[in-house]
């Protein structure tokens, strides 16, 4: 928040011509814009197998054989995976990490930007590297890499080798969870969806114990009850583990091994605890093919037929937004009321901390528009990224590209 205060909220318009980059380089890849909108960057090709990162039109001296996964950082800089002499590392604001690997992918950055990590492969073995340090132990196989808000890393790793197509071997359970590189004692058939609590001290995951029995593991302790299926568990604000489980043919919400909500649903996933209180929201299908949102086991009065892709709370918990698709078109619903966006695409909404304002970028017929509280307030961009409200909520920062020019605009609302 303090950071946001220091951003420039007074200049109406700043422009950076990006269209001309195309003439300077062989080709320009995806544009990436920093949270404060001051920096725009892209991977550019300068020669055969020679790439650089162009930030606001400037390129550094170092070129790499390959660059990918360029991402903006909370501090408004950029990070990317780079390859030189067939070895890979991460560069953060132009600085290379000291360890190099055979391959790296899946970049994770904590929301405060203090920690960064990725998955690596070195000589056919796998691990994660966090803040420049690779795990001490590596594994033959790895999936589901996760980084907590505090920089704790975890992944599903294979701890028992398996011969090709050995289904009886698989039955024994070959996988475990590695936290900062060290594994749990238990092994399972499958582990999915590792989830940390806020402090990054406890973790939970969905597991499969045999062909049919699914349950939840928390810090290497398995729930007693077994289910027909589980989705991603989430820690509540008070540190309890909430999980969607399929029990007697219905999806239900359980907490710490016990039923939490009473109702059973045709589908239930994406548990979203309110940041401000004890409310819990989930995406549900009350009946087959009819999607809605349930808050504390009460279903919204609205349904949509295609999909709800995400639900988000405002910081104070007063506003709950669902990103949904109905009859093939994208829309938002805010506190049970659908908007009328009829968009081809809807991007991640931005909600003011007090929950009064909801802003979202939509795409219709190839053009991007900014919608605030169901009204288009800026439009016809060729590209636009998620906007930001000013700390006093009187202004909004728009970051978009129009006719080859990147425009950072601040407008009052």
């Amino acid at each position: 928040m303090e950071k946001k205060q220091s951003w420039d909220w007074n200049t109406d318009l700043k422009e950076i011509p990006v269209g001309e980059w195309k003439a300077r380089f062989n080709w320009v890849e995806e544009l990436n814009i920093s949270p404060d909108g001051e920096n725009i960057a892209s991977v550019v090709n300068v020669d055969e197998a020679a790439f650089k990162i162009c930030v606001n039109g400037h390129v550094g001296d170092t070129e790499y054989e390959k660059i990918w996964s360029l991402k903006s950082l909370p501090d408004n800089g950029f990070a990317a995976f780079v390859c030189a002499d067939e070895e890979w590392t991460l560069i953060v604001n132009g600085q290379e990490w000291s360890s190099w690997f055979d391959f790296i992918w899946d970049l994770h950055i904590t929301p405060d930007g203090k920690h960064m990590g990725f998955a690596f492969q070195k000589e056919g073995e796998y691990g994660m590297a966090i803040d420049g340090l690779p795990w001490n132990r590596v594994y033959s196989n790895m999936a589901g890499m996760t980084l907590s808000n505090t920089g704790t890393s975890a992944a599903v790793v294979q701890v028992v080798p398996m011969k090709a197509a050995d289904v009886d071997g698989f039955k024994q359970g070959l996988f475990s969870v590695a936290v900062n590189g060290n594994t749990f004692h238990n092994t399972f058939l499958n582990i999915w969806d590792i989830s940390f609590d806020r402090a990054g001290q406890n973790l939970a995951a969905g597991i499969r114990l045999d062909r049919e029995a699914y349950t939840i593991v928390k810090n290497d302790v398995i729930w007693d009850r077994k289910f027909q299926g589980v989705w991603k568990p989430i820690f509540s604000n008070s540190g309890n583990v909430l999980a969607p489980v399929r029990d007697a043919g219905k999806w239900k919400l359980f907490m710490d091994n016990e039923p939490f909500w009473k109702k059973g649903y045709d589908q239930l996933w994406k548990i979203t605890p309110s940041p401000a209180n004890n409310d819990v929201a989930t995406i549900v299908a009350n009946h087959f093919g009819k999607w809605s949102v349930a808050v504390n086991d009460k279903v919204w009065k609205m349904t949509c037929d295609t999909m709800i892709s995400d639900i988000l709370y405002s910081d104070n918990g007063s506003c709950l937004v669902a990103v949904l698709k109905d009859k093939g078109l994208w829309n938002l619903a805010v506190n049970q009321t659908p908007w009328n966006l009829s968009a081809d695409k809807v991007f991640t909404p931005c909600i003011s901390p007090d929950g009064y304002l909801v802003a979202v970028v939509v795409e219709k017929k190839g053009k991007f528009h900014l919608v605030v509280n169901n009204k288009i307030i800026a439009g016809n961009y060729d590209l636009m990224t998620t906007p930001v409200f000013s700390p006093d909520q009187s202004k909004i920062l728009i970051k978009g590209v129009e006719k080859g020019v990147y425009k950072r605009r601040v407008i009052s609302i």
Partner: protein
Amino acid sequence: MSGNETISIEKSTDDAVENGLSRLTPQRVSHVINQVLHQETGARFKAYVDTCMRCGLCSDACSYFLSNDRDPSFSPAAKVKQTIWEMLAKKGKVSKDFLRRAVHIAHLECNVCRRCSMYCPFGIDIAYMMLLVRRICHKLEITPQYIQDTVNSHSVTMNQMWVKEDEWIDTLQWQEEDGREEFEDLRIPLDKQGVDIMYSVIAPEPKFQAGLIYQAAVIMHAAGMNWTMPASPGWDNSNMAMFTGDNEISGRIARTFFESAARLNVKRIVMGECGHAFRSTYDVGNRALSWAMPPFEVVHAIEFYHELLTAGRISIKKKFTKRVTLHDPCNVSRGRGLHNMARKIVNMTCSNFTEMTPNKEHNLCCGAGGGVVNCGPPYKKERMVNNRVKAEQLAATGAEVLIAPCHNCHSGLEDIIHHYKLNMEVKFLGDILFETMEKKIYRPEE
């Protein structure tokens, strides 16, 4: 052709099936059977069982029946008789020998091609019932080894072939580099948000046929599409769990797939030439999750190529001149009615096209795509015998090139061609398009 093999063929054994059987107790067997047949089904199943008049009209639909010289035990209804009817009559108290045979019937002698429901006057869906038997086998852990291994792979990696995450990305980057020989600025955009198309393939492509990704990239680039491929799990559209009756893993695969598309904010999903993957994403996997229809438009390559050609985004430089014939994959013809579009593409790209008969919805099955080929090498010989009619049908066309817009059909048909010594080359529609297209970038104003 060697029809007499039918009699001499020995039914192969499979360690996974045998070990599984040895672990079973009678209680578990009857419990699982009754649970699946009584709790997991409803009026539809009962109606199928009660309505069947044992008339045998479905027999002529089944390529297994036809290839085995009309051996009655291969008739679709006979497969139900030898599995479900008996399970019901005995209230689930069936022997291990019975189960061994049931595994075989449901996984190797029925390709769940759904042709028989077009031949039964009541439209009874025998494939559905064979999938119920497969589900029972899944729960009893007596699914054949190789297909089970693919499901295990799905459950761990969300792809069918144990392709590791780095291998996937590395393959795409390497195909991108190769593709630059065609177009120097060609890209395979990874994880690019907000594009129009997420392009997805099945795991055998990066594993064994990376060239197909290269071709697809060239086609996308030339057509000027705004597209991406996911850099994390969810890129594989195949789903073998759907064919072993592991509906839970099947649902998880489909969810991961569609959530990739949601994460990338794409408008629609285009997929390579695979039939079973289309069935999973368009028809089956979504239903397991309460998505009545797929949450993103799923466009099969046939539809996509048709769109590119008719919109003029791809133009044909010189038609393919060898004599070609076209195999209609069950899962996109009977499964989506794309057979007419496929013909249009063939006519637009080839100058010498011979139809095989029967065709379109009535196509004879390749004997592979319903999970049969995935049961692996132990059953290959048998698969060839069970597919004789397809070989005869192919031979009758006299074509040099067989176009099959489906991966599983490809594998099945290649085996058939080899076994029956038919002098034919199997190609994808994409291969033909790649060979015949003008390699220039589409500009709307031109």
